[in-house]
């Protein structure tokens, strides 16, 4: 199997062969829902950090007894799978408070399907010097809790190694994105999303090997040329390759993004020549901002523009899951600005699983026609 095929395979379901393997060897798996959780700490403790995606979830029947129809379907789907025991392979869950929905997911998961190890970090919602110090403190406390719970020591040396490993995969992904700047990118947007989802669900060392192989394979893979327009996907969490596929089936090739399941997660390198915990806090907080960061409007806008230009896109598709207030509020500002700047902009609201596909296809097709493609 080629690396690409392997990655596609691994992206299909959370409990993939590599995780099974890890468990059988007696390894522990710790889940987390948001990209602001410092995985390196878990990795340095010999644990497998697992970014949770409700991949394959199609109903929220049980979850909706607690969550409601006005809560984010990504979180409802996560809770559903937790209640169904689909995340039974997790030995713990790291919570965080980027938004109300994810904070409440942590509450409901903990109270209705609690796991052995459950800790939560307090994420700042404004990025400044004091916040970096605060989050460093949070990571410090978290490190202590991990060491205590799994009775191990995380020292400069082991943490340094872990950071290097994660920096490496960040670097590979950046290389991968560089390939997408070409006129005929070797990968489609939904393939990239699948690659990233897979990477977040497997031991990172394995992931890096696969990425390295992939990059070699791609050198002589035929580029994609049968597309009507180059698009960028922006907005809230989007781990659903099928959603990207709807856009691409209509002829809009997704060549880049500003997503926490994409560029935002991979673009910040963690410094290793300084106080490591501080460097972690610094790197995580200084990533291109999530909408949860107050006063981050310009930061977000500029990152979007920068990416749009670097990947020479014809338009930006802003997507958010319905009921997401953070990105729903941001839409107000971003919409106004992109209009001012004359950048074609399509705003799509979606549920975690695709519903009303027909209407979405019509919108995307009309958008492509609108930008004359």
């Amino acid at each position, binding site marked *: 199997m080629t690396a690409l095929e392997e990655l596609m395979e691994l992206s299909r379901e959370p409990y993939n062969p590599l995780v099974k393997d890890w468990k059988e060897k007696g390894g522990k798996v710790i889940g987390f829902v948001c990209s602001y959780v410092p995985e390196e700490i878990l990795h340095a403790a010999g644990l497998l950090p697992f970014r949770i995606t409700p991949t394959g979830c199609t109903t929220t029947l049980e979850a909706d007894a607690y969550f409601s129809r006005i809560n984010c379907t990504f979180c409802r789907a996560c809770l559903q799978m937790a209640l169904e025991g689909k995340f039974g392979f997790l030995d713990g869950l790291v919570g965080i408070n980027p938004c109300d929905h994810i904070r409440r997911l942590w509450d409901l998961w903990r109270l209705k399907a609690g796991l052995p190890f459950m800790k939560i970090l307090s994420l700042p919602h404004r990025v400044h010097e004091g916040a970096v110090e605060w989050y460093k403190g949070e990571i410090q406390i978290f490190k202590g809790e991990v060491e205590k719970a799994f009775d191990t020591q995380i020292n400069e040396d082991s943490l340094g190694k872990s950071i290097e490993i994660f920096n490496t995969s960040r670097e590979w992904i950046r290389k991968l994105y560089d390939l997408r700047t070409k006129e005929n990118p070797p990968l489609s947007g939904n393939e990239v999303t699948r690659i990233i989802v897979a990477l977040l669900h497997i031991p990172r060392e394995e992931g890096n090997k696969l990425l390295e192989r992939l990059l070699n394979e791609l050198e002589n893979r035929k580029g994609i040329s049968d597309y009507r327009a180059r698009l960028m996907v922006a907005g809230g969490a989007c781990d659903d390759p099928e959603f990207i596929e709807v856009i691409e089936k209509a002829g809009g090739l997704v060549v880049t993004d500003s997503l926490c399941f994409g560029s935002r997660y991979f673009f910040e390198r963690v410094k290793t020549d300084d106080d490591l915990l501080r460097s972690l806090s610094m790197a995580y907080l200084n990533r291109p901002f999530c909408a949860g960061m107050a006063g981050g409007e310009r930061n977000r806008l500029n990152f979007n523009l920068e990416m749009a230009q670097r990947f020479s896109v014809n338009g930006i598709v802003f997507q958010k899951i319905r009921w997401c207030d953070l990105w729903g509020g941001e839409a107000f500002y971003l919409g106004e600005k992109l209009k001012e700047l004359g950048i074609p902009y399509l705003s799509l*609201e979606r549920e975690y699983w695709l519903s009303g596909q027909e*209407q979405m296809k*019509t*919108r995307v097709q009309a958008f492509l*026609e*609108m930008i*004359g493609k």
Partner: protein
Amino acid sequence: MVTAGVDIGSLTGKALIMKDNEILSWAMIPTGADGALTANKVMELALDKAGLSHHDVDYTVSTGYGRVITTFAQQNFSEISCHAKGAHWFFPDVRTILDMGGQDCKAIRCDETGKVTDFVMNDKCAAGAGRSIEVMADLLQIPLDRVGECSLDIKAAEIPISTVCVVFAKSEALSQLRRGKHKNDILAGVCRALSIRILSLLQRVGIEPQFVISGGIAKNIGIVQRLGEKMGLIPRICIEPQIVGALGAALFAREQIEKG
């Protein structure tokens, strides 16, 4: 050169034949369970009227939710682009278009060439879509094309319809009937509720004159007049509002040929 546009909506299918810039003929039939069949039928009808057959047509473009299952079309365009294009053919100075189909309602902005510059659609819920008018007409046993005038001829007082759900609005109307309220007064409430929802959709794209209403709803004077009042301008109506989409498709067909 002869081009054709086929528009398969959720309620009706339309086909339109053009020769150069002239409309030769058009036909409209209700969309049956089988969209592909509807497309063929309505195309045949239009061709008959024009005294032409399939092989006289140089290029066909399909649109509407059935655009992909219209097998004989060489190309398909979204109904959004087609309605802008069609409306622009009727009114070259059009800038804002409202198209109200059976289940969705679209507010479209276009430039001086009829090219779409922005648009919004309702989704998730059919509140404020054309279907509700149908449902009401059916309930009150008033022909669809008379709903508008009736809604303006208020007998006692307009009856507010509180629910947004089409299906519940129907039963709300029914219970008003049972209380002996007059059909017109109920329709007045229905049309007001609808025009308010349409207006908020239009406001999202921003309304610039000329404002053109296409689709079946344009025949509903009750909606048209109420919208006009609220916006402080007179909506322009195409002579045959329901064929605007098919017309746009036929025009795109011509462009395709000219592009070569």
